[in-house]
């Protein structure tokens, strides 16, 4: 099986007036199947930019990026969108749920997008997952009727429902209090272990990062492995 993520000489720069900001500089690393890798760094270190590159949300200025053997750096924006649909899952700090969709509809959406199963099967899968995450009685509630922790659990359910080989999580507990954050954290890690999903987790929380298999540190746009 190919290495899920391979990065070679990856760079991303942004023009800023007369200068250029090097948000990511010459990053190189690999992530293996089933690994939980944490990327840490202070604010402005470039970790969010690196995450957007790894997830195909943005394209690099230079370098190469292979995800599941596919050269993401060579793909067009539409090709990357289709790739994300089939192979990637996401959990965001601000949950990023569809405000007008119910919890069930939010979780159904990736399955509908993939179109691999029937609607009835999709509902079954989504319902089961939400129930598993303790939201069996909140299926038809909109995010505005839920607490932060519940919303993040819906987001996690949405991320895992298609059983993606790779999942990206950007500060998944950043908007939650300690207690709720720990609950969410546990759920995330439990699901990751059960499904052997490769997870790349971006966080500034070192305590959370220590629970990962590996820690990579971003500083000034450069990446290094943390012991």
């Amino acid at each position, binding site marked *: 099986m190919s290495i899920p993520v391979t990065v070679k000489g990856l760079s991303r720069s942004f023009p800023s007036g007369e200068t250029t900001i090097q948000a990511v500089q010459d990053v190189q690393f690999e992530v293996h199947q089933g690994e939980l890798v944490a990327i840490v760094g202070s604010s402005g270190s470039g970790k969010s930019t690196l995450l957007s590159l790894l997830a195909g949300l943005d394209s690099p200025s230079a370098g190469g990026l292979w995800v599941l053997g596919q050269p993401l750096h060579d793909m067009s924006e539409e090709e990357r*969108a289709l790739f*994300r*649909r089939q192979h*990637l899952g996401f959990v965001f700090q601000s949950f*990023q749920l569809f405000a007008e969709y119910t919890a069930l*509809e939010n979780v159904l959406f990736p399955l509908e997008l993939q179109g691999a199963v029937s609607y009835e099967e999709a509902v079954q899968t989504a319902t089961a997952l939400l129930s598993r995450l303790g939201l069996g009685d909140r299926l038809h509630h909109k995010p505005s009727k839920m607490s932060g922790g519940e919303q993040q659990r819906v987001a996690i359910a949405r991320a895992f429902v298609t059983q993606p080989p790779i999942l990206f999580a950007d500060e998944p507990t950043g908007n939650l209090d300690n207690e709720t954050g720990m609950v969410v954290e546990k759920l995330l890690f439990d699901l990751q272990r059960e499904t052997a999903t490769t997870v790349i987790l971006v966080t500034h929380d070192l305590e959370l990062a220590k629970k990962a298999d590996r820690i990579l540190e971003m500083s000034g746009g450069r990446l290094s492995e943390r012991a």
Partner: protein
Amino acid sequence: MRGQQLRWLKRELRSLGSRVWIILLAIALGVGAVNGVHSLADSIRGAIQNQSRPLMAADIVNQSVHPFPEDYQNLADEYETSETKEMLSMVSNTKFESLLAEIKGVSPKYPLYGEVVLESGQSLDEQLSINSVVVQRTILKRLGLKLGETVLINGKPFTIRDVVESESDRVNVGMAAGPRVFLSLEALERTGLDQLGSRITRKLQWKVSEEQKSELVTTLGNLEEQHSFVTTQSSNRANPSTSRSINNSERFLGVVALMSLLIGTIGVVQALSNWLASRRNEIAIFRCLGMSRREITGLYVTVVLILGLGGFLLGIAFSYVGMSLLLEIVQPYIPIDIVLQASIWNWLSALVLGVGVSVLSTLPSIVSMTQVPASVVLQDGQDSYGGLRWYWYGIYGVVLFGTLYSQLQNLLWSAIALAVLCLIVGLVYALVYGIQTMLRRQKFRSWTLRHAVRNFASTAFGLRTAIVALTLGVTVIVSIGLMQDSLTKQIRNVSLTTAPTNFFVDIQPDQWAETKNLLQDNQIAHLQSAPVVMGRISKIKGVSVSKIVETKPDSERWAFTREQRLSYDVPIDVETVLNGRFDETTPDNGLCLETRYADRLGVTVGDALTFDIQGIPIEFEVSAIRRIQWESMQMNFFLVGTSETLLEAPQFRLAAGQLTEEGEESVQTGFAKTLPNVTVVSLRNIVERVSVILNSIALAIQTMGAFSILMGCIIMISSLQASLERRRKQFNLLSVLGSTQVEISKMVSTEMILTGFISGVLGSGLAWVCTWGLLRFVFRMQTMPSVVGTLLSAMLVTVCVALMGRWIRPGK
């Protein structure tokens, strides 16, 4: 459509929330107004068409003010025909109490279609003879007569044989000058009314099969080329003057409908653009989760299509309700039964308009939104407004052009209207930009004032666009209000102070002295009189009229072929002369024309006009063009010559003046005794009836305008609310930082006052200019729009928008 796409669609429609009603109403407003106007016009045309045979009492009718040439008489022998002669004349009892009546002499076969219903149940032919007449009951009542008694027509006695209850071809019931009197053609000849100056309308009615019709129409058309004073009308075509009236009314109402459509379009664009902007984050999530641009575009285009369809259906419903109400108002004045028709063509046009405007006007925003990068999902809290690329405004231009063309039906006018609209939009944008730039530089101590002014001057949250849209909306709404105010004032501005109560027609030249004495003995006030010479235009600028009218449509031929009334020695106010001069320096063959009539003929100062006056060609030179104020109800002539040329021409006299009701009765009796050929036309009743009709029309105009204004206000409110919604985070932040709700309300109110003031003043000012332009150049009226109304509108907008700031609050 696949199930999942339907589900996505349903969810997106759900996300619209209450906005969906504003969007539907905005689309419905434009669609409803446009469909309603055209459906009503089509229904009226259709009713006339369907009922044209009984209305005309024939398949084909020839009309002439002169006796029909022999060609027509010979042709008539080959077909089934009837003949009528109609005119106004006084009728009196033996005590010489008189009233004005509509006299109609008929041949035995009249009517060929429809019927004249008599009280006795007998036919008209059975009751008429050389000594008998059939009258409307009003004559019996007003003159105190009974059946079998004598009525005098031009001093000749006739026995009243029967009472007419209805006649199918009398179309001017609401505006009839007097009650009907039927008599045979021989009896009409006996009255001696058919003489120089009497205005007899002669008609020859033909009854033919469908197979014979086209051949006969062709033959009559050929005859018309030789005898241009005869007109031909067939039951397949509506009466040209009726067509003209319907077309003009449709055009006027179409302008109001167009303005409604513009308000609707502004509302649709604003509401949908704001909604799409609010979906920016969701669209980023779609992109992040792997939805393609094509799928996103397809989804939102389908949403807009459905909204357009919903708006169309609602608009159709509105239009039929609205037009039914309008019909209730106008039906009493139209003697044919009109049923609102559903025209597939109108519906299709409305559908294309509703759906097309919705989709095309939001396409730029939809496509712009699909450019939202997926990485936005990682930019928590940032809500920058993505504007449109400049080339997308071309699509708005296309949409506007299409909308304008759909109403104006003329490429040049549509292009001009679009240019004017673009100019207005550009001007408003530049003014708002300038004001914002100026305000941004100001410094204020009070933070609420500072924030309010900065917010107003902000380029974020689409505020500038919202202010421009609000200003444009105010411009359109206030324009409708000013226009209807000007038009209804014009309608009501019939000056009765010096306006005559009576006209006196058919006065022979040798009768003038006696007439004048009779009138002065009865204390007539503001007496006017003028000689009238009848003639027909035979050449214009050396070209024969019969050649000119070959290329003219029916609706325009009347200006060239009708019998003209020329006058001389009438006062002409120099203020009303627009071009040239008409004074002591005018040559003997000088002629002064009314401006619109001159335009119809295509002549100007210096051009030659040749008239046929009783067989003698007389060439005139156009010396002056003038404007006539018809609403003054003074005696006015389209054509005024000089006494040097017209003094010796065969003529009669026309007079007008003010009489009391007693004086009018005494004068009528006097004329009936000594000058029975003189017709006394009382304007009292006519003015009253016209006033009732015009009030109804004014009501119809105001109703349409009020509806558009109301809808426009709803749309503008939603536009402002959407703008406030997008600043929810700002308000929450202020609250978190310690501002009280009172302070935030004060800030919002100040901002709304500023917005309302700028939009109100700019919008109302522009409205005044637009209304002036429309009145002056489209409706050719000299009326100035109300300045007080404009100022009041500006104040009203300021107050309303300011109050909105108190009531509309974004949710937490």
